[in-house]
């Protein structure tokens, strides 16, 4: 059964230059205990999707429609305070920049305590009689769980390395045992050895706690390493989705192919790396594009570009995908 089911989610912003269609009708789902990757270039709407799920977008300038089911509860139809009580407990989030995602004037131990203090019962598995001592022990337990020394409790963020800070982020995100963890490019700001440790840590913790993870990244290596299913996003739409195995074996959409071609391969030193021509258009222009939004940048485009194909379990927006698989 799916834990998170996003159906036809639209997130549009009012901007001075017109409506920005940052997320334009996307659907995907994540099963319990599984990891789903949301892949795409910068500016394709990945982070906006995650913020929409968290309910962190300011309602003043945003129009959100569609459905986001978490455990069959539609998050978009809930009251504000109900959403807030779900944040941290049912859903929590890890941010891209561990440098800026921790409060610089607060000890990291206190920051994890803050997260626990919001949902103490859930975090400690206790109904009453919770004392400060309990909470503090829980913080130390989390620090151990994420492979940190207990002395880190009394340190300030600037005294820690990037990897340690990201561990703190993970510790505080997991402090209340969320059923869904959104990781917004958790390893982008880290070096490769630290990336490996952090990804390993997340996978271990996932096995222990059966947490589902929505992994937002543009690193296909990370996807191959940690994820079960994936969606490729382009210009506010999901252009291809399926299990990681399927998509990696047979990338169908030209955009996906482009992403794979842009990867440097081991042992293949000859020639330049391929790049996808052009850039992602600004979000205000999305609706002015063709029905296939990748059309302008696609190297396979021709007059047949107007249909989409669906094979069981592997969806691609490009109708020509089955034909040009070998081209």
């Amino acid at each position: 059964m799916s834990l998170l089911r996003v159906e036809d989610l639209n997130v549009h912003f009012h901007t001075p230059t017109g409506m920005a269609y940052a997320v334009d009708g996307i659907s995907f789902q994540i099963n319990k205990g599984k990891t789903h990757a949301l892949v795409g270039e910068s500016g394709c709407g990945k982070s906006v999707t995650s913020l929409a799920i968290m309910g962190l977008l300011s309602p003043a300038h945003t129009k959100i429609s569609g459905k986001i089911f978490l455990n069959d509860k539609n998050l978009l139809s809930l009251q504000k305070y109900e959403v807030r009580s779900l944040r941290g407990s049912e859903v929590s989030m890890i941010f891209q920049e561990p440098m800026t995602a921790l409060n610089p004037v607060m000890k990291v131990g206190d920051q994890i305590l803050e997260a626990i203090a919001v949902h103490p019962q859930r975090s400690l598995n206790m109904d009453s009689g919770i004392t400060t001592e309990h909470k503090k022990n829980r913080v130390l337990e989390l620090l151990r769980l994420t492979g940190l020394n207990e002395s880190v409790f009394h340190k300030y963020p600037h005294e820690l390395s990037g990897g340690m800070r990201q561990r703190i982020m993970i510790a505080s995100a997991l402090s209340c045992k969320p059923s869904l963890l959104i990781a917004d490019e958790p390893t982008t700001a880290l070096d490769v050895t630290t990336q490996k440790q952090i990804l390993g840590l997340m996978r271990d913790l996932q096995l222990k706690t059966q947490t589902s993870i929505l992994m937002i990244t543009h690193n296909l290596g990370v996807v191959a390493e940690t994820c079960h299913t994936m969606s490729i996003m382009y210009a506010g739409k999901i252009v291809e989705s399926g299990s990681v195995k399927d998509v990696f074996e047979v990338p169908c959409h030209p955009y996906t192919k482009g992403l794979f071609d842009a990867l440097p391969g081991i042992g293949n030193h000859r020639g330049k790396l391929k790049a996808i021509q052009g850039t992602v258009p600004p979000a205000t222009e999305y609706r002015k594009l063709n029905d296939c939004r990748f059309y302008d940048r696609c190297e396979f485009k021709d007059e047949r570009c107007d249909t989409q194909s669906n094979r069981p379990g592997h969806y691609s927006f490009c109708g020509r995908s089955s034909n040009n698989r070998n081209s």
Partner: protein
Amino acid sequence: MIKNITLIFFALLTIYLFYLFIKTDNGREAFLKLRSKKRVVAAFLVICIYFLVGFLDQISFQIDNKNKTIIDLIFRGVPQERTYSAPFANRVTGIIPGTENEERNLVKGTHILGTDINGYDVFYSVIKGSGTALILSFGTGLISFPIGILLGILAGYFGGWVDDLIQWLYTTISSIPWLLFVIAFLMVFGRGIFWICMAIGLTSWVELARLVRGETMKLKNLDYITAARAQGIPVARILYRHILPNLNYLIIITFTLSASSVILAESVLTFIGIGVEPGTSSWGVMLVEAQKELTRSPIIWWVFVGSSFIGILPLVLSLNIFGDALRDALDPRVKGKDV
């Protein structure tokens, strides 16, 4: 008998806040850091001396049907002269020609800072004025800072109509000429140091509110505030626990700077006759008088030097040094660096 309950209240409140502050981990660390710097300890001692003097001036006794404070008793031996006399001089200044040798020109005692036009000892007046200055600067801060911080944070964090409303409020207040507002206020509520604190406090929060609003607007879009919201922390707690500590430096700097301007503001009010009650010493009053006397010949410089260099300067300088150090001590980012 205690003359002025306000200063006692402020002193006790300050000590209590200090105690609460020291009790926390961060506070103890900051305290130890402050203690390790001689300059800061010296500044703190100077502030303490001012407080002590101000405090002693509030405790009075009934002697010869007159209220005498402890300071009055200490200065009992300092007599009043006929008119000006320079520091350590043995004759008064401005002697009429032909009367140089008359006995009435001799001063009755030694005045280390001379005497003013009425023959009062300047040093004694400076001492008496410190209590007024402390009540003014801390009392005003106690009124204006909570208002400024609260409204600034609310405006900056929530934006929208809350921001509009608060902006409207402070632009309205700052568009009324400050002096006119204070005059009107004092005319309605009467004179006295408490109402001066109130009047200045109710107008001077605007600057701080503006600063706090801007800083909060910057902070609320930072990742760690988003992260705090993502953890489901309620808004009030985010404001109090996550944003307020980041505003510390702004608040402390503004406070140390405003302390001196309040002392000067009081002199303006005294100048137009709505300041402290007649008979209350204040540095503002002394400055206004000293200004006139600087144009005399021979120049009467000691009233000016006494009020500004002996009275205002050490206090404001110490407040600045201490405030600066306190800001650094509270900011973990500058830990370890000697600033």
